């Protein structure tokens, strides 16, 4: 066994991989060999650290020095200065990690200090492709405890008492779901995992599977024991190649170690796991459509009841939980339901992972206790809005959710408070918007998404959302008519009441919630034919201020369609007929003489 004096952890999540972390790993290996350090320093590829905005991320232990935005060219310097001579390369350290010349450990960085990591506990800590590292951090201990010490009913009781609710969006109590399935008469049952993460902007499930795939495998085996199933399926979207690969490796390693397969831990419990790839349909994240797709049919939902716990995969009792839900299970078993129930709010226990994106400084993954306010997430963890702009709204729950305006920044985030605000937890996408975002345009974006992704089985969703989109398109083009807003509201109400599955029932939410908080913007579009944020192109024009214009001619040179004309000492003008509203002139004007109107 080799002891290394130093470990270099390089993030191998999707975000950092796309900014060259694979090459960084190779470069480290080359330089370590060059300096004859390969037996002293170990390079480890880990899962996502969460601070994706600053990727690629490299953390060097035992110092815990966190380097951000590392380039391949920086590797030589880190190797020669830090690893060879012990001098930390200060210029590459993450901003928050050093003050007064000393470097703080990772746990003290603002971005991490306010988080509480349960589902993400191993992400960025272990090598996801090495089962022994997972075992080192108490991996598979929960499964061992469950199989050797607890009865299935006791397992379900623990999950029920923990108060864990589904992290995929609906928030249904997990223990109750397991109990329904367990109570069905014996015979074949199934355990499924929903890794068909489809909400725009959400990537927490991907990160868990990339950074800690064994936690999901272990939890699914526990679920199998609890309900009496010996077979599981992970339904994962094919667009997540790294997650698929690591999960595959993890399943193979678990089989090799006898943690999947026959007679696990010498008991008579057997459990096997298979991967099923989704082909990119958003509706397959809906539970009945997902199971139809696993069966090999076209992914379309069916009416419930019967619920999957009674009649699921191939007509057998099935439980389906989300990746993040599973990632919590081993910790609940090990630390006890009281520990978990002690975190969070009255009705929402534990933590939630959010994928924070949009107009925010620290884009990335954060895990916070339920009940943390939106303000803390945006300003304390997220680092605020770039360029000193004003916070306008946060979008949660993706195409099924809604917007939370600035006036509710201090609402503690949990399942019920978000529903009250007309939004929902969803899978945990959190898109931050500033004053430059047009709320009508945002609603249109999400509706475009659902119209695209509607499977077409039921008319309210297939036709209704299309009609709503047509109205929104009209409004954003400045052709809104009196009564359009009322029509939108009526359509939304009817679709919610009559659509077949969750996709359709929640599709109008982005429109309803923006109407609730930003009706004035809709009215401005329809009545005054104006887009207050200056986003909807057909309603605004670029104008050159005659007083501020110095007739330098830069704008005319830059204009791609030659819509600007003028001459020396005469202010330039934009021909509105020709203008395509690309905004280049405004960007290039050195005197800020061009503005949107």
């Amino acid at each position, binding site marked *: 066994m080799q002891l290394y*004096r130093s470990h270099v952890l390089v993030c191998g999540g999707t975000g950092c991989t796309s900014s060259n972390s694979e090459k960084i790993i190779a470069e480290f290996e080359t330089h370590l060999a060059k300096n004859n350090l390969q037996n002293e320093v170990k390079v480890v590829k880990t899962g996502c650290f969460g601070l994706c905005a600053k990727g690629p991320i490299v953390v060097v232990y035992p110092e815990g020095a966190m380097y951000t935005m590392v380039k391949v060219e920086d590797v030589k310097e880190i190797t020669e200065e830090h690893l060879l001579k012990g001098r930390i390369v200060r210029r590459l350290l993450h901003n928050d990690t050093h003050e007064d010349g000393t470097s703080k450990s990772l746990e003290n960085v603002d971005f991490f200090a306010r988080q509480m990591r349960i589902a993400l506990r191993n992400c960025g800590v272990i090598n996801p492709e090495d089962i022994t590292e997972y075992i080192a951090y108490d991996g*598979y201990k929960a499964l061992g405890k469950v199989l050797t010490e607890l009865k299935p009913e006791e397992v379900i009781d623990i999950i029920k008492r923990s108060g864990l609710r589904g992290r995929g969006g609906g928030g249904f109590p997990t223990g109750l779901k397991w109990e329904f399935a367990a109570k069905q008469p014996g015979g074949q049952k199934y355990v499924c995992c929903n890794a068909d993460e489809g909400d725009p902007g959400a990537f927490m499930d991907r990160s868990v599977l990339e950074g800690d795939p064994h936690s999901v495998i272990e939890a699914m085996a526990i679920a199998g024991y609890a309900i009496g199933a010996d077979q599981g399926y992970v339904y994962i979207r094919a667009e997540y190649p790294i997650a698929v690969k690591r999960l595959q490796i993890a399943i193979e390693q678990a089989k090799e170690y006898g943690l999947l397969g026959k007679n696990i831990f010498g008991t008579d419990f057997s459990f096997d796991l298979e991967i099923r790839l989704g082909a990119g349909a958003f509706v397959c994240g809906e539970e009945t459509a997902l199971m139809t797709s696993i069966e090999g049919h076209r992914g379309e939902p069916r009416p419930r009841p019967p619920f999957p716990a009674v009649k699921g995969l191939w007509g057998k009792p099935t439980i389906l939980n989300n990746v993040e839900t599973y990632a919590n299970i081993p910790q609940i078993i090990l630390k006890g339901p009281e520990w978990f129930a002690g975190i969070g709010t009255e009705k929402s226990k534990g933590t939630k992972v959010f994928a924070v994106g949009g107009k925010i400084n620290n884009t990335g993954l954060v895990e916070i206790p339920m009940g943390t306010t939106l303000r803390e997430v945006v300003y304390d963890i997220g680092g605020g809005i770039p360029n000193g702009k004003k916070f306008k709204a946060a979008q949660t729950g993706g195409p099924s959710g809604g917007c939370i305006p600035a006036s509710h920044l201090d609402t503690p985030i949990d399942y019920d408070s978000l529903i009250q605000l007309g939004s929902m937890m969803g899978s945990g996408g959190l898109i931050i918007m500033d004053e430059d975002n047009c709320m009508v345009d945002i609603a249109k974006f999400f509706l475009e998404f659902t119209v695209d992704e509607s499977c077409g089985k039921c008319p309210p969703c297939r036709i209704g959302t299309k009609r709503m989109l047509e109205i929104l398109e009209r409004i954003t083009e400045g052709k809104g008519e009196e009564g359009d807003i009322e029509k939108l509201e009526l359509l939304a109400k009817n679709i919610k009441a009559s659509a077949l599955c969750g996709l359709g029932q929640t599709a109008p939410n982005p429109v309803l919630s923006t109407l609730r908080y930003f009706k004035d913007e809709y009215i401005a579009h329809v009545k005054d034919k104006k887009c207050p944020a200056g986003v909807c192109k057909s309603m605004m024009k670029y104008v050159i201020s005659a007083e501020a214009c110095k007739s330098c001619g830069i704008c005319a040179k830059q204009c791609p369609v030659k819509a600007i004309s003028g001459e020396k000492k005469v202010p330039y003008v934009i021909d509105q007929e020709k203008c395509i509203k690309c905004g280049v002139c405004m960007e290039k004007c050195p005197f800020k003489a061009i503005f949107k109107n």
Partner: protein
Amino acid sequence: MKSLAELEEIRKKTLEQINLRTSNNGMRVVVGMATCGIAAGARPVMTAFIEELNKRNLKDVTVTMTGCIGVCRLEPIVEIIDKDGNKTTYVKMTPEKVARVVAEHIVNGRVCLDYTIGEAEK
């Protein structure tokens, strides 16, 4: 996997290899690796520490580097910090001296007084 004991064995074994990533409560060996230290032969000293610790399977001891401590004439300098924060400074270290420091100081808790800075300055 046939038993919990088997799992526990893997857990312990791997944890020893990776526990330097979490907060470490064991001893720390800090080797001065500035230009002066390297010139005086600090690298073979550090390698000797790693080899010796490996040989004895002492996994809760971390070996790190630091810059110039300031008494360059006494390099290679190695500081050993125990879990209570008590610091011992060894000077003019050689790979040969390392074996004794590991055996007496790190394993048995007896400081090798004759190698320390106090002794050298007498």
